[in-house]
């Protein structure tokens, strides 16, 4: 217990009043680090494990107003662009973050900070009053929260000791024994399945889906009473064909007793790629609402159509 509370990990965000990721009103702890590299990832700051510098150019006040960061960089990673705004040379940056300390407008920020389980759950418990009414609690997300397995498991164990409802958003790409341990302390699982075809999955995320599907089936088999919601973010050009969705829906159906949700695609992550000095892997294309509706109908049909005994339902998020 004592050791769980002191276990340390790296978060990159705490999101209060989350109403779309698990039952009730929840707080999401975003753990840094991910085992996949999805091309469309909307949280690129989640991928690497270590804290990292980012620069939001729009917020930079420019040298006429502020020169606070000019002299602090020991590695010549900061210059001045023609318009007077700061210019970040990411290649030179050694991630010392001295510049972020002095930036008054949070144009230079660091994604990622250390926190103990005790500290993280204190943030979660600030909204305790909302959980008891709504049936909410904590959701671990990321990144892939189970990449920091010691931290994530300690968070889950300590949450259960404190009677906090627990939920996880996982991509499933972690060793089975970690998922098994987590499942013992979880009340709800949101499990991402992006593609049924392993080769396409590898092309889109950097890894095949064998481990993911295998873990999902074992999880359902060994913890039949643990509610699982399988979710697919529908990405234009990646998995938005009827074939893609039908195959995943079939997998969910075969599991039995599992909810399936399709999530709409949003490009809210795009600016963050720019802040991090990276480029975005998917074209600027939106998923029309009608198309998402059609795919949802299709998934519902697969899950409920053939045999009436299937308990899976497709809930439109």
């Amino acid at each position, binding site marked *: 217990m004592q050791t769980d509370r002191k276990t340390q990990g790296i978060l990159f965000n705490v999101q209060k009043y989350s109403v779309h990721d698990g039952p009730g*009103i929840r707080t999401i702890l975003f753990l840094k680090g991910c085992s996949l590299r999805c091309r469309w990832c909307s949280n690129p700051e989640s991928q690497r494990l270590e804290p990292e510098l980012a620069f939001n150019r729009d917020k930079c*006040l420019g040298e006429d107003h502020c020169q606070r960061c000019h002299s602090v960089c020991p590695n010549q990673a900061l210059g001045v662009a023609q318009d007077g705004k700061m210019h970040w040379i990411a290649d030179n940056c050694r991630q010392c973050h001295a510049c972020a300390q002095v930036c008054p407008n949070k144009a230079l920020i660091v994604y990622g900070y250390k926190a103990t389980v005790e500290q993280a759950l204190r943030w979660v418990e600030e909204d305790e*009053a909302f959980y008891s009414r709504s049936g909410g609690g904590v959701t671990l997300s990321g990144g892939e929260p189970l990449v920091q397995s010691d931290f994530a498991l300690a968070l889950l164990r300590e949450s259960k000791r404190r009677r906090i409802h627990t939920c996880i958003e996982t991509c499933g790409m972690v060793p089975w024994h970690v998922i098994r341990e987590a499942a013992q302390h979880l009340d709800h699982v949101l499990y991402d399945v992006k593609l049924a075809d392993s080769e396409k999955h590898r092309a889109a995320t950097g890894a095949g889906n064998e481990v993911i599907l295998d873990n999902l089936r074992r999880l359902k088999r060994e913890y039949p009473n643990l509610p699982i919601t399988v979710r697919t973010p529908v990405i234009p050009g990646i998995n938005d064909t009827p074939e893609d969705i039908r195959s995943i829906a079939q997998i969910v159906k075969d599991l039995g007793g599992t909810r399936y949700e399709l999530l709409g695609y949003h490009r809210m992550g795009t600016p963050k790629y720019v802040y991090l000095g990276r480029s975005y892997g998917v074209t600027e294309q939106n998923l029309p609402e009608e198309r998402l509706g059609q795919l949802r109908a299709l998934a519902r049909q697969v899950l409920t159509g053939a045999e009436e005994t299937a308990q899976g339902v497709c809930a439109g998020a």
Partner: protein
Amino acid sequence: MFECCLSPQEQFIQDQLDGKENHLRNQSAHARAYRILDRISGLTPKVDVQRGRLFTESMRETEGQPLVLRWAKALMHVAKNIEVYIDEDQLLAGRAGAQGRYGILYPELDGDFLDVAIEQLSQREVSPFIVDPEDARIIVEEIAPYWKGKTYHEALAKALPEETLPLTYKPENVLESRYIVNETSSFRSSLQWVHDYEKVLKRGFGGIKKEAQEKLAALDPFSPNDNVQKKPFLEAIILVCDAIILWANRHAEEAARMALSETDPTRKSELEQIAQICRHVPEHPARNFREAMQSQWFTQMFSRLEQKTGTIISNGRMDQYLYPYYKADVEAGVLDEEQAIELFECMWVGMAQFIDLYLSPTGGAFNEGYAHWEAVTIGGQTPDGRDATNDLTYLLLRSKREFPLHYPDLAARIHARSPKRYLWEVAETIKQGSGFPKLINDEEVIPLHLSKGATFDEIYDYAVSGCAEIRMPNRDTYTSGCAYINYAAALEMALYGGRMLKYGDEVIGLPTAEPTRFATWDEFWEAYLAQQINLIKHAFVQQKIIIDLRSRHFATPLGSALHDLCMEHCTDLHQPKIEGGIDLGYFECIGYGTVVDSLATIKKLVFEEKKVGMSELLEALRTNFQGREDLRAMLRNCPSYGNNDPYADEIAKEIDRQSVEFTKKYAKEVGVHLDLRYVPFTSHVPFGKVVSATPNGRLAYTPLSDGSSASQGADVNGPTAILMSNFMSKNYDYRERAARLLNIKFTPGCVADDEGTEKLVSFIKTWCDLRLWHIQFNIINKETLLAAQKNPERYRNLIVRIAGYSAYFCDLSKDLQDDLIARTGHSQV
């Protein structure tokens, strides 16, 4: 992921822009109200001089007589002579003035500057009015001259002590507020109020008159008290009962006259029925739902002729006092839901035509957008503490969803056992997006007022009144408008040794030391506190004078006729002390979030981290951050109220605590509960216009934070954090607190679908658990507000929740529109 989502209100407007038909227009419940609404919408309001002229004529004749009797005589003169109308399509009769959108005059309040004001009225940028030239002549030549030297406002300006006056008015022109310790007793004759309407429905004014006659007959003929005080009071009650009955009967005659010449048989029979009903009520008890509605409507419209009540008399618990009539009619098969809604909506469009005309610039600034809000209370508990929701509760919610008008202001009482269906329908109505209903929390209001002396049955039966206040219509007896204190001005005075940049070298506050001399946070805090307490002191001084003065200028025979205690003791409701009454006053904290954030910033950056020097800060503030964008950015990124951050919230709690300490000690000398309140109307905008740049990075002369909400855009931790900050900054161990107004803006996507409703219900339940007094929601996309600001003519019907009430967005000033846009909109990201 729901960024594209529109609220039903936004969808409604979009459909209208796209030329799609509104299917609700043709439903039997709404068709009539839509026809009436079409006729009045977009009309510029006009001033009707009749009330002001008739009232003045009578007052001129009765000088020297007891005031309550003079008032009753004036009302009789009005009732006899004012033009009466039966509006096309209307089922309810009764207006306080001309057809269309109209405002009326109360020269007893502002007669001293009536002539000047009337000339400016049509040129006013916000809330303009039309004045007919002949009417303007009557105002300037007949009405205004009589009141010169006689109005309450003039008397107050003369009575204020030398040190209090410059905090109240501009010394060179007492018509203008200083917006520091702002009195509100001179732009309205009474605080917001709620009548005991049930009494009218059950007994009729005939019954009340009989009670007064019996009391009159039973007076001790030798008693000086009875002769001098009670007798004129009872005569006034009898006279005012006669007045409203006469006025109703004149409507009956008019309806009968119109029926004779009406060619459409349906309308002819409607008019005949109106004539019949107006002969019966409000003189006699109502016999059915329709009569109950008419009786209530006459009472509230005649009240408007009686006096200018702040924000207008509220409607009380309509789902309670009307329910027996509704139930009986439905059971008898003579009324169905659609007909009941039609009658309600006839009332709503009647309210919408009345405009609360403020001549005083201060009054106008407090109530932007022609604001008045006759709150209709729904839900809550019965006098014996059971859940009170019934079929009418749901009908009133339905009407609000299906007939998008900003009248009436709907107020839903919430308690720990509110049924799921009620919470669900309340949430669905909120999701509509026009800001209704606002919520008031039984779990805070009830125990608090028990400790202030109410009995259980009285407080279980409270009605919402005005913005966020409550009334126990037979127990409350306090009617004086109270002080609004600019806490941000206190902060500014602490920064500049008692001065404010707006007012130059004049030392308006206490001459505290220049802040560069303070070595510690504690020293600075002490200086701020001294300024804050000084302003509260002057508010109390002001109030003591106001209470004494008002009873010599105002009387309310109609309001007194409906009040148990007034009738029992034969005392007018405007008298300072009525035996057995509870006097619930308040004083207002304006700029809470602004001050808390500023103090937190000074504490952290100047005294703890020493990242910014005090003189550097002052220099930047004096120049409104010119060339110091870097410093301003730093200030804006400090701990701030509304984020459940103990650093800021502890300062907030201390500001609150110091205020309630003061009133705990001194309120008894004023003789009323003067409790701490955070309900600004729209006054945080004019109050901001006198306060220069503040250390939280707020630019000079922009709006202050409103109510107990966070500073504009400062709440970055989501809506749960605002609730928690409110909870953490209240002093639950004191009873000297009153309403706290809390605005929350959601984007529609955040509450979309049934799942969104469910979460909104959970949010409301937690708000109830936290014993916060009030909450209201704007469910709207920022893009819609920006579009409406750009193309007002296309968004004329966009309703937004402001501060305790909703108004048409396009009726608001640019400042207030910007303020609404700047309030953080929460969406799940």
